[in-house]
């Protein structure tokens, strides 16, 4: 309906329609409220304009009216709140089995790594109809990953991962903006998201001449850094076994339990003593400053690939969402 209306942004994701629906509702509601209030003011201003010999009628107020015009707006506000919350909940919950793309923001460019292997700068190629989860971090200041055509935005912070997801519905080339002010060339930190038909996307993938999946480069880095010395696949290692840990609860030495998500893995590589796994000693060296953000992404992707679930599997190109996850306590 709005595709040819130049004052409306393109709708290119499953989420965009949901956001637009609430937006249209709010525009209609606001237009109605403005019209009602402005008409009343105009009518009063005309009808009760000052005339010689006619005094104003003093009216104290009306509690019934006050309560009416407090409760009715409150009720409408609660509907808007719930509607907005449902959309947000959907936006913030990536579906199981989404393809993962690691994003690193830096002054002033976007670096993107697909789990299949290709790396891109300021460009993201994705196929129509696939759920794509973005795992993002920044190398310096706060940035924000914003694709208006998908109606998604998420700040990208240094020192931690934030996530966002989308499923593109329309082939095309769309703006990728940095929307959090990040210094001199903030307005130059823009790129594009290229949405392709699946077949074209496969052709693009195979044409890249890449050197294996992200998890595979993570694995070789894992070897290079000497990690397997302690993190062995049997119980003899001085470090915990990494197979199958992703997204599972981990018992810590201080009694707490945490979920081994991307942020936990990241922290455990950079400053291992922050959270010590129960039964182990704080002997792992600190890797803060030794591995860059992109290497870190590869390591995280590799460790996730050790967990036999669809979500973290390297090189997975399944187009179906909601893959079966074995167990999540």
């Amino acid at each position, binding site marked *: 309906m709005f595709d040819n209306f130049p004052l409306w942004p393109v709708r290119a994701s499953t989420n965009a329609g949901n956001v637009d629906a609430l937006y249209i509702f709010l525009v209609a509601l606001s237009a109605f409220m403005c019209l009602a209030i402005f008409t009343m003011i105009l009518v009063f201003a005309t009808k009760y304009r000052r005339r010689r010999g006619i005094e104003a009628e*003093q009216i104290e107020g009306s509690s019934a009216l006050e309560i009416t015009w407090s409760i009715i707006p409150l009720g409408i506000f609660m509907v808007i709140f719930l509607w907005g919350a449902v959309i947000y909940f959907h936006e913030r919950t990536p579906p199981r089995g989404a393809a993962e793309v690691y994003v690193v923001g830096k002054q002033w460019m976007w670096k993107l790594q697909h789990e299949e292997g290709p790396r891109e700068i300021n460009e993201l190629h994705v196929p129509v109809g696939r759920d794509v989860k973005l795992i993002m971090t920044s190398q310096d200041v*706060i940035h*924000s990953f914003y694709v208006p055509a998908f109606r998604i935005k998420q700040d990208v912070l240094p020192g931690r991962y934030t996530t966002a997801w989308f499923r593109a519905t329309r082939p095309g080339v769309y703006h990728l903006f940095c929307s959090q002010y990040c210094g001199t060339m903030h307005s130059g930190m823009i790129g594009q998201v290229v949405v392709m038909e699946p077949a074209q996307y496969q052709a693009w993938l195979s044409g890249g001449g890449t050197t294996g999946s992200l998890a595979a480069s993570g694995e070789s880095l894992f070897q290079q850094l000497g990690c397997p010395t302690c993190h062995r696949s049997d119980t003899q290692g001085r470090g915990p076994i990494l197979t199958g840990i992703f997204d599972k609860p981990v018992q810590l030495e201080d009694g707490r339990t945490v979920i081994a998500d991307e942020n936990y893995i990241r922290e455990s590589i950079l400053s291992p003593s922050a959270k010590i796994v129960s039964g182990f000693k704080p002997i792992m060296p600190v890797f803060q400053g030794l591995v860059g953000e992109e290497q870190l992404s590869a390591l995280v992707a590799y460790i996730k690939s050790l967990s036999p679930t669809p979500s973290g599997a390297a090189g997975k190109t399944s187009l179906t969402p909601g893959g079966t996850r074995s167990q999540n306590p």
Partner: protein
Amino acid sequence: MATAAISAERENYLNQEYGIRSWLLTTDHKRIALLYLASITFFFFIGGFFALLIRLELLTPAGDLVQADTYNKLFSMHGQVMIFFFLIPSIPAVLGNFLVPLMIGAKDLAFPRINLLSWYLYIIAGTIYLHCIVTGGVDTGWTFYTPFSTAFSNTKVIEAGVSIFIVGFSSILTGLNFVVTIHRMRAPGMTWSRLPLFIWAHYATSIIQLLGTPVLAITLLLVVFERAFNLGIFDPTRGGDPLLFQHLFWFYSHPAVYIMILPAMAVESEVVACFARKRIFGYNFVAMSSIAIAVFGFLVWAHHMFVAGISLYSALVFSILSYLVAVPSAIKVFNWTATMYKGSISFTTPMLYAFGFIGLFTMGGLTGLFLAALGIDVHVHDTYFVIAHFHYIMVGGAVMGYLGGLHFWWPKISGRMYPEGWGRLAALLVFAGFNLTFFPQFILGYMGMPRRYWQYPPEFQVLNVLSTAGSTILAIGYVLPMVYFLWSMRYGKIASDNPWGAAGLEWKTSSPPPTFNFDEEPEVTWEAYNYEQISAPAEVNVER
């Protein structure tokens, strides 16, 4: 003509003493109000000049008028000047300073010397900030987000931070003075339920200033310390948390919006009552909604952070609380509208500003509902939609209120009438120019244009051109009042004590008032807005 009886030689606060010393060492709240008026007008035009340069740069998609770094400094300093050196002091420190003692029948504020100190703090802070501007400026945005401000910006962050730290104390002292004055200095018979709504709103404002501003001061101090001494408070590479900064910053800076808008609502209540010649509809509800706004306003700060990386559940909590704070604002709009019902309405310049205020504040408030809706905020956060929204509140609301109030009380302040025809023309220009400047930005924002962009994709150009065109009209609308106010100080018609036939103690003393406000202490035996007992002036609209 009632004014003929007034002798021009009558002693008042303006002619009692002359000379620069009598101004710089004054403890008279009315003179301090004028000192503030001159200082904030100066900063308003600096901030406005930055805004015009921003709009001129955005006339074309390419960054061509100024360098990228210069542009970043322009919007940063536009925001900091306008918020900390104009909007926050605007109504409280000028109109509030002048009117709070007059309206409650007091001789002065409770602490006249602290009042003068607050102006000196403002001037010290302003001087530091001017030094910061001319020696290179600052490019952090008005929000000082970390770690950009503490570890990456190469500009004068420390100087700007120290300056805003100091100006915060000027605001705290004004708030402190008002709270004590309103509690302790009311004239006999001036009970809480007889207070003008102007006083209620200023009371609520002062509480926010007292409780909120220290948090800003602490936050800026931490930024300065992290930057100067390499502490790791907000910078993650030094073990800090950048989101902590945002929580602290918005804990003050969201309530600060209410420091700007509540006083404008204060003016609105007085002006609408006077020119509809009626008691404000639902006095108690309007008074209590000011207090409710001040209280709830402290509980919504993280709605600035829905995409910043806070947890899903805290986002839900802050979204629902943001809707709660919208209710008292809606109550006020409905009550002002209802006040006009069966009134006797005249269309003076202050009333035109009041109409404009209701219109623009309503639109600003309604678009706030969009931003509090989580799903929509994700799309429009940090875009021009937000820029348009808060300018509708802070310029459409607060500045319209300020200008309306300045016209309403100008006869009392200066003893002269401003030229009514010019006043109305300026009010219309401001309203038209404002809408042309900022309405297109709502559309730009939903289209996806991010804020703080020096260059932008070409499809956004048409709307940006409209916006820039509007800003030139707005500029004319703002310069006009300055010209005719200055003109009227010498050539304006002599004002009578109560040219509008308004209720309120400030109109029962002479124009301009004597130094100690009232010849004898007034005793209040009537309710606020007793318009049934005051006859409307035969000729309200005083043409030149």
